[in-house]
């Protein structure tokens, strides 16, 4: 009823004074647009980073051997810092396969599987004058799958490959480019010789995967790029030392885990209690993507908030602009206010009329600002290489906030109008 009438009235007023209304709204538009643009870039960044990290496994726990933290002891006012007593990992310091079995038995529901890999060093594949730089890496099936490689030809490892430690290898298409003139289709079955530490090792290719050049930070020419040659885990062990041990293991959590962070602490302390109690220099430390991600999201949010706060100041300026124009408008419409009072408008209805007008003005400014901000933010996000995603919460908040500004800065002028003396207002020319 009265509210709807007032909204229609306000819209008519805005339509009649297009230019002035637009200028009035400009402050609000710029303020809201900048807040939304920043928020859009912020959420887009966070969203795409979260995506990336999820693909790396947000539910994974990395469990590694690390030096015990240095302890500070007070002794007669002197400080002694006790560092690690050994700097290289000894035989007793590694994570062994048996430990993992114990861990898995302890938490059958909470641990789904382990991602295991073992480096067998860098080297060069050679065939006459042809060569390719490679890194040898033994992996278990789960790890190989986790790397999400696109197979171009051949097959991945079979159970017997892993169990018997067969001398089979999966190479990259870059490798094939260098060694077989890019013929990936006929590569499986071929024998290759790889020189590592002055010794030749021979493997049979069983598959070719597509090398993801974007994952490589170091830009080298395609021919010189070092690509990974995947070996069965046992093959890599045999290559090195026979011992089935790791410096670092990735634990993929199962359905029984509700909080990755809590479980991370749990297995950390379990491992340390069980296997590293008597180890002076090393202990197990765990980390997870989710804890890292939470930290990152938080710092990202803090940054957006800080920038938004600065943008919020322009909203304040915009609000003052609205107040200014409302005061002018009320001055201009003094006679109208007098007439309305003569026709029976109460002070309250006059007040509501002008507050609604300020609100509608700010609301429209807010909507325009949201549109401009979203477009601008999306373009910026795209430019920075992120998928744009609109911050819905911020949009709702911005529109609501612009209306609050309308009420806040509309109140004083509206009150002034409401308190006008009808006689004076009617006589005003």
């Amino acid at each position, binding site marked *: *009823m009265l509210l709807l009438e007032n909204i229609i009235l306000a819209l008519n007023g805005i339509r009649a004074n297009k230019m002035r209304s637009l200028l009035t709204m400009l402050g609000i538009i710029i303020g809201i647009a900048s807040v939304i643009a920043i928020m859009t870039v912020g959420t887009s960044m966070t969203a795409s980073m979260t995506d990336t990290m999820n693909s790396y496994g947000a539910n994974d726990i990395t469990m590694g051997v690390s030096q015990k933290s240095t302890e500070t002891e007070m002794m007669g006012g002197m400080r002694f810092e006790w560092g690690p007593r050994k700097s290289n990992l000894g035989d007793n310091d590694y994570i062994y396969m048996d430990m993992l079995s114990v861990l898995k038995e302890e938490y059958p529901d909470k641990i789904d599987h382990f991602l295991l890999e073992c480096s067998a060093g860098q080297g060069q594949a050679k065939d006459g004058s042809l060569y390719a730089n490679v890194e040898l890496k033994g992996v278990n099936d789960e790890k190989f799958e986790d790397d999400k490689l696109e197979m171009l030809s051949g097959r991945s490892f079979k159970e017997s490959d892993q169990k018997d430690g067969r001398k089979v290898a999966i190479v990259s298409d870059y490798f094939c480019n260098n060694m077989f003139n890019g013929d990936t289709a006929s590569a499986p079955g071929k024998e290759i010789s790889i020189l590592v530490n002055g010794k030749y090792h021979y493997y049979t290719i069983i598959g070719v995967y597509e090398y993801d050049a974007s994952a490589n930070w170091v830009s080298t020419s395609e021919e010189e790029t070092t690509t990974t040659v995947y070996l069965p885990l046992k093959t890599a062990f045999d290559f090195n030392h026979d011992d089935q041990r790791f410096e670092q293991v990735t634990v993929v959590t199962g359905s029984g885990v509700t909080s990755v962070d809590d479980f991370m602490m749990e297995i950390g302390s379990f491992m340390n209690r069980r296997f590293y109690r008597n180890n002076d220099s090393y202990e197990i430390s765990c980390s997870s993507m989710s804890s890292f991600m939470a930290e990152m999201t938080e710092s990202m949010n803090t940054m957006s908030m800080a920038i938004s706060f600065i943008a919020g100041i322009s909203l304040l300026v915009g609000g003052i602009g609205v107040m200014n124009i409302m005061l002018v408008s009320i001055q201009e419409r003094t006679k*109208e206010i007098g007439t309305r009072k*003569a026709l029976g408008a109460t*002070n309250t209805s006059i007040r509501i009329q002008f507050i609604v007008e300020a609100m509608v003005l700010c609301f429209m400014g807010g909507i325009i600002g949201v549109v401009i901000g979203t477009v601008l933010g999306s373009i910026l996000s795209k430019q920075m290489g992120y998928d744009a995603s609109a911050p819905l919460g911020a949009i709702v908040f911005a529109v609501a906030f612009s209306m609050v500004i309308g009420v806040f800065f509309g109140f004083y002028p509206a009150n002034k109008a409401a308190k006008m003396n009808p006689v004076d207002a009617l006589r005003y020319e």
Partner: protein
Amino acid sequence: MAKGDIIIEAHDIVKRYYIGKPNELEILHGISLSVREGEFVAIVGASGSGKSTLMNIIGVLDKPTEGSYILDNINVMESRDDELSEIRNKKIGFIFQTYNLIARTSALKNVELPMMYARMPGWKRKKRARELMQLVEMEDRMNHAPDELSGGQKQRVAIARAMANDPALLLADEPTGALDSKTGRMVMDIFHKLHKEQGKTIVLITHSPELAEECERILTLSDGMFIGERKGRNHAPS
């Protein structure tokens, strides 16, 4: 409300303005006025006689400094601000010299305005506004904005608006002052029609003795006092 009931009962109304403490300015020096239901009264006076001040007081836009004023059984002196708004809304229909239509709002919406402030439902408002437009013969142009209407048309819309809540009193302040004689005549004819056909109580404030002559009763105001009262012709000049 039977015909002949007293609508306006004012006694010893004094209005003073204070322009700085010692300089008080007394505009009305004790005016008494009584208007019965269905009367058509003219208040005539030269400019500076206190006409406007009196009209503001009769129209409840302003309160007298001293005296008593009963309008349609409501004691105006004791009413609060929002009660005064309601009195203006329900009891009084204003017609101004300068029409005072709300700009950018159609004639029909202007007529609806007092009913809106009376919180009448929309469909009822529209129906009544259309009827009133018919009464003042403005139904053809009722959707036009005020600046698309001639002076006479505007004043007819203003009369329709004044009639919106069927007020006890129509208060017209120089209603023909801004019109040429022909359209002024037309507006006066509407007042006569409302008076005769609907028995409306009308108080007409004017400086023109000829216009006052058309009314039932003529009160002459000079220097803030009534100096004469006589009967008028009570019809338009032939």
